[in-house]
């Protein structure tokens, strides 16, 4: 029968495509970080290098000489930045080529299978079946022809993209080319930075400024002056991440190089450790897998200053996209936290992201840890204990609360017209900081959560003092957690009894009025145990399960617990002490 039915032609093989867009983006990031360094030389020559007090012929000769260096540096910076940007676009283009490649391979496999089946059917067919079979074969031939057109287009597009990127490299290969093309060119970043709002501008004003810039200006500012916008409230999360990544990469290279040469100062050694911790935190999050999409979890470096707080460092990294997520949770850690805690905090942020995506995978989630204030370095009973250095007092929490309120305002304002469900979670001393932010500053959150709280600040006596809807103030306290046991109880107020040493009221107590949720751990012993203070974000725990339900807005699914009571005739009574803890499913198996 095969002599009367024409089979469709076999489609061509799809050529192999080996490329790694993530690796290409790394290459681009290295070029961009180097361009920032070269740009700094240009700025230095135009400013501090000029020695204004020096006058006379020698001074004029010196300034003339360095002028050419500055001019070359400016041109090199622009050239390198342009190529870096083009390489970044190349990574995007190649990802698209890889996606199309996958689709072509799939389509070819289907066609080959269909043709094999047709061949078998034709071989066994009778003459009267031939017309119908021919129609099917013709349909298949049309699909093959379409496939061939798509394949040709894909090959053409790939070759064009490869030629374009090679051309971009070739056009800026020599210094002659660079000087001819870029010397004397205005840096688009300069005018943009000149119009940047002052330090006291609101996040809304900063956002308006940013949005008024051209895309070219935005990219130029990210490359030329990442420190100006990386930690600026009002700048969109994606741009902050891009700028802070440039700063981080540059710091790792600069201080790493000094370390190799044995030239690191003690301060720089600490800053480098903070930078490395930030990098590791990013890796920790990006190694995570979204339980719903099975894609790697994206990270955003929202805050990065390795020198902040006398070298303790400031860093905030998000699991998930802060710019688009429906649910945005900001976790504020406490005692013993500094920049080098970032990987540990990243692990917790990832746990909360995974759990929230597991209990409700219908919406996007971002879970960010925020080490943006000077937290006490030690636990109350370690080292100097309740000392006057702010270890157990509220001074650091009050200062941190102001910063936290600014951060939350900035996050809220950066999503103008696209309101996220925003949740602040304070853990440990971070709950004291969060309490201060709520009481002293007012915070624009939808839900306020305290876990393992030693007290939420002396001026916050109940949920009404937080400024947040009382139906959305939550507390989780493990009955064996000694830190959660530190808060004032009922009529006994430690800040008055111990001369100001306490941290305020226990949010898990009935008088406070928060909604208490179950937070016991199956690993709890029969006595108070400091290890229980670190179980709130563990997978499988009651606490993480309930946190993820609050973050996803599934309030009815939160497992409530009776509050602590503190009658005048007896000590605090925790009804959770005798309840058997349960294991909870907080992670869908990918």
């Amino acid at each position, binding site marked *: 029968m095969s002599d009367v039915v024409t089979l469709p032609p076999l489609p061509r093989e799809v050529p192999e495509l080996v490329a790694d867009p993530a690796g290409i983006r790394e290459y681009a990031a290295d070029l961009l970080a180097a361009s920032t360094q*070269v740009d700094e030389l240009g700025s230095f020559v135009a400013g501090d290098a000029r020695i204004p007090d020096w006058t006379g012929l020698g001074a004029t000769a010196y300034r003339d000489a360095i002028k050419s260096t500055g001019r070359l540096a400016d041109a090199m910076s622009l050239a390198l930045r342009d190529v870096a940007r083009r390489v970044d676009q190349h990574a995007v283009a190649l990802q698209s080529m890889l996606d199309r490649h996958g689709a072509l391979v799939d389509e070819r496999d289907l066609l080959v299978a269909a043709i094999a089946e047709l061949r078998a059917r034709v071989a066994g067919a009778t003459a009267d079946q031939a017309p119908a079979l021919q129609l099917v074969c013709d349909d298949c031939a049309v699909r093959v022809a379409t496939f061939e057109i798509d394949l040709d287009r894909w090959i053409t597009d790939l070759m064009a993209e490869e030629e374009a990127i090679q051309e971009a490299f070739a056009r800026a290969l020599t210094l002659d080319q660079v000087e001819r093309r870029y010397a004397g060119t205005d840096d688009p970043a300069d005018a943009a930075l000149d119009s940047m709002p002052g330090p006291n501008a609101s996040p809304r004003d900063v956002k308006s400024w940013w949005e008024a810039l051209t895309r070219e200006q935005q990219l130029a500012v990210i490359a030329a002056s990442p420190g100006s916008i990386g930690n600026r409230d009002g700048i969109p999360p994606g741009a902050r991440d891009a700028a802070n990544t440039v700063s981080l990469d540059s710091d790792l290279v600069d201080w790493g190089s000094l370390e190799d040469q044995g030239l690191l100062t003690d301060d720089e050694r600490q800053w480098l450790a903070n930078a490395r911790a930030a990098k590791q935190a990013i890796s920790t999050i990006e190694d995570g897998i979204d339980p719903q999409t099975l894609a790697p979890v994206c990270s955003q470096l929202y805050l990065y200053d390795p020198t902040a707080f006398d070298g303790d460092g400031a860093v905030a990294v998000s699991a998930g996209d802060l710019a688009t997520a429906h649910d945005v949770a900001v976790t504020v850690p406490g005692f013993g936290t500094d920049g080098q805690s970032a990987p540990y905090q990243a692990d917790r942020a990832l746990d909360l992201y995974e759990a929230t995506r597991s209990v409700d995978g219908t919406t996007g989630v971002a879970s960010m840890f925020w080490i943006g204030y000077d937290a006490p370095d030690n636990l109350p009973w370690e080292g100097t204990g309740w000392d006057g250095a702010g270890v157990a007092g509220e001074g650091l929490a009050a200062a941190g609360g102001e910063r936290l309120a600014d951060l939350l305002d900035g996050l809220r304002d950066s999503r103008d017209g696209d309101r996220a469900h925003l949740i602040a979670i304070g853990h440990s001393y971070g709950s004291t900081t969060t309490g201060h932010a709520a009481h002293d500053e007012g915070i624009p959150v939808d839900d306020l959560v305290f876990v393992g709280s030693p007290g939420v600040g002396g001026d916050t006596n109940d949920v009404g003092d937080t400024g947040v809807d009382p139906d959305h103030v939550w507390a989780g306290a493990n009955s064996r957690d000694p830190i959660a046991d530190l808060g004032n109880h009922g009529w006994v107020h430690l800040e008055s009894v111990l001369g100001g040493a306490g941290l305020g009221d226990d949010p898990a107590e009935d008088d406070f009025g928060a909604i208490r949720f179950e937070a016991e751990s199956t690993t709890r012993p029969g006595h108070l145990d400091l290890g229980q203070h670190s179980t709130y974000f563990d997978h499988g725990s009651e606490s993480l399960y309930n946190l993820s339900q609050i973050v996803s807005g599934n309030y009815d699914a939160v497992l409530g617990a009776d509050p602590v009571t503190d009658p005048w005739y007896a000590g605090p009574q925790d009804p959770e002490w005798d309840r058997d803890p349960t294991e909870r499913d907080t992670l869908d198996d990918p």
Partner: protein
Amino acid sequence: MAEPFTMAVPSAMGVTARAWDEQHLDLRAAGGQVAAAPTGGFTSGVAGAAARFAGSWQRHVTGLAATAETRADGLRTTATDYARTDDAVASDQLLLDIALREDR
């Protein structure tokens, strides 16, 4: 009237020389970063061009680093000369002042 002798200028030169030193170190590191930029993610047709670009730019940036180092060294020498010249002029002025003083 001549300006009073001051160490402000050579001192500023010293500070600026150290800043040039910092630029030198940072740029040298940046050159190394460009050289180490991974080319493995590119397609085989492009990886060679990417490697060549990185190699060329390592030399460009390292050259800029060397210029910064030269500026630092030059400025330190200038600062020393400046202070030494001012010292010499000051001594000369003192001797001249004594020689020119009217005795009666």
